[in-house]
């Protein structure tokens, strides 16, 4: 090799590669790692209304265990999570199968089907707030015109969680559908041909072949939705702000209000660290599950 002297040395190359990822790493450390450490520190402190801080050790955490509002928030978070996730997985898989078989659907129409999750959640909240208005909304008009009783929707302590789950499902079931559609398209066509030759009914084919093969994709969708659903914020804050009363006060909403409405930064830090531990715990658990169902 004539130009061997020109070739880049491995050391120089390693240094250059490190320099290329350095800005992203430093940015993340500065914006995330350092602040999270600061949050941990804040969680061991209490702040008076004048802004004076004092060390309270695990005081915020023992307060949390004794705090009914925390346990209520945890219950709301889990109820909303389970209900929304179930709805979004079922409807998302349904929609994905429909779109998968509608091969002649133009791309533009296809993009309309999956568009809701690109809409700002705040806008989705505003939109549904008007549609679900108890006295003037279109939803109650439709219910009444088919002979059903009107609902108080977001204004009812009983119905607020299912209603919020419904709004979020409207927005994110199409996202689940998009992921599942990707999974469907990557399945080998040969398995279907074999099933067809064996005379399997469409239901049996779905139950025995498609669903098991899709399981890793479904777990992926579950992980991605879990991360968002466990820290549910936007739609609730715009529609009910945790109300009526505290009926939709998820942990994220509660933590936010403790921090930025009551300015109890120390206790809010303890709440948010607890919620973060829950989110990461769920992600790790589902990640192991994904390893177990991979093929």
């Amino acid at each position, binding site marked *: 090799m004539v130009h061997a002297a020109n070739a880049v040395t491995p050391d120089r190359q390693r240094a250059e590669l490190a320099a290329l990822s350095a800005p992203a790493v430093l940015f993340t450390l500065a914006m995330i790692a350092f602040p999270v450490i600061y949050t941990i520190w804040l969680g061991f402190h209490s702040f008076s209304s004048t802004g004076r801080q004092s060390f309270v050790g695990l005081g915020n955490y023992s307060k949390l265990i004794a705090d009914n509002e925390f346990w209520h928030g945890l219950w709301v978070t889990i109820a909303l999570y389970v209900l929304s996730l179930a709805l979004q997985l079922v409807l998302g898989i349904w929609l994905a199968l429909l779109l998968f078989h509608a091969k002649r659907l133009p791309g533009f129409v296809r993009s309309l089907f999956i568009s809701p999750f*690109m809409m700002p959640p705040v806008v989705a909240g505003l939109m549904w707030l008007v549609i679900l208005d108890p006295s003037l909304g279109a939803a109650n008009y439709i219910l009444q015109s088919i002979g059903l009783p009107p609902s108080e929707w977001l204004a009812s302590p009983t119905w607020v969680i299912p209603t919020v789950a419904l709004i979020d499902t409207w927005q994110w079931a199409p996202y689940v559908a998009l992921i599942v559609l990707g*999974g469907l398209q990557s399945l080998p066509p040969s398995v279907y041909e074999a099933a067809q030759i064996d005379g399997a009914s469409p239901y049996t084919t779905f139950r025995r072949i498609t669903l098991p093969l899709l399981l890793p994709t479904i777990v992926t969708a579950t992980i991605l939705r879990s991360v968002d659903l466990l820290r549910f914020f936007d739609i609730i804050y*715009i529609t009910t702000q945790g109300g009526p009363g505290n009926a939709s006060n998820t942990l994220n909403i509660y933590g936010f209000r403790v921090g930025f409405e009551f300015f109890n930064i120390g206790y809010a830090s303890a709440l948010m660290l607890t919620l973060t531990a829950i989110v990461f715990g769920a992600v790790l658990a589902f990640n192991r599950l994904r390893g177990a169902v991979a093929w």
Partner: protein
Amino acid sequence: MNNAPLSEAWISRLNVVQLVLAGILIMAPTAWMVLSSFKPSFEVTAYPPTLIFSPTAENYIQLMRTTPFFSYTINSLIVTLGSAGLGLLFGIPAAFAVSWTRISWPAILTLAARMAPGTLFLLPWYVMFRQVGMIGSYTALILSHAVITLPIVIWVLLPSFDNIPRSIFEAAQVDGCSVTRILWKIAMPLVGSGIAVAAILSFVFSWNYFLFALVLSNGDSKTLIAAAFNFVGEGSTQWGALMAAATLIALPPLTLAAIVQRWLVSGLTLGAVKG
């Protein structure tokens, strides 16, 4: 299975019915929002709701007259373009280095940051930004929103860089090309469409993000999304203007989404699914 062709025709007919049903459930609410925004103000709250009306722009005019909608839009554009730009600036070289070295922790680090609830960072940011007097500044908003855009850029571009044959880089190296030069002259032009998708998705998700601007912006730097929250209180009796605002705010992300819909799968699952 005596008359299989007939049952197949039945199944496809059933599919069409279901598809139409799904389409109505998905599109009707958005259509209702847009329709309401063009209704005369007295008709927006009419009960029973009306479907036929003479469209008017009065809600839009009222929105522009009673709120600084234009300056909110400028704020949103500054924050969104700034954070998308920062995400690309830091994310493109990082994705390239991760793809080259197969050392993935920098990518995972940014993703983990994205998974935590935003309030977790917002609490210390609020304390720190307040101490240095940066609450309400564009800088604070752009930096916070770059936390959203950076993992999008990295995870959208990783598979694109992975797809470039290594032999191309090796040939360039033999010619004495440095890694940075390879990224700039060879790799980036090859992943142009990936960069476009990353830029558009960054724009959409930064534009849509609510929580950080809710706390870190003030009257002068309020983004559209954060301002929309105030419209609820003020606009409780003015649904027309509220729906006009909602329509305008949703327009940029929905338009961009329609443009990139073909590439959405790989982009939106952060590389979890190969689309």
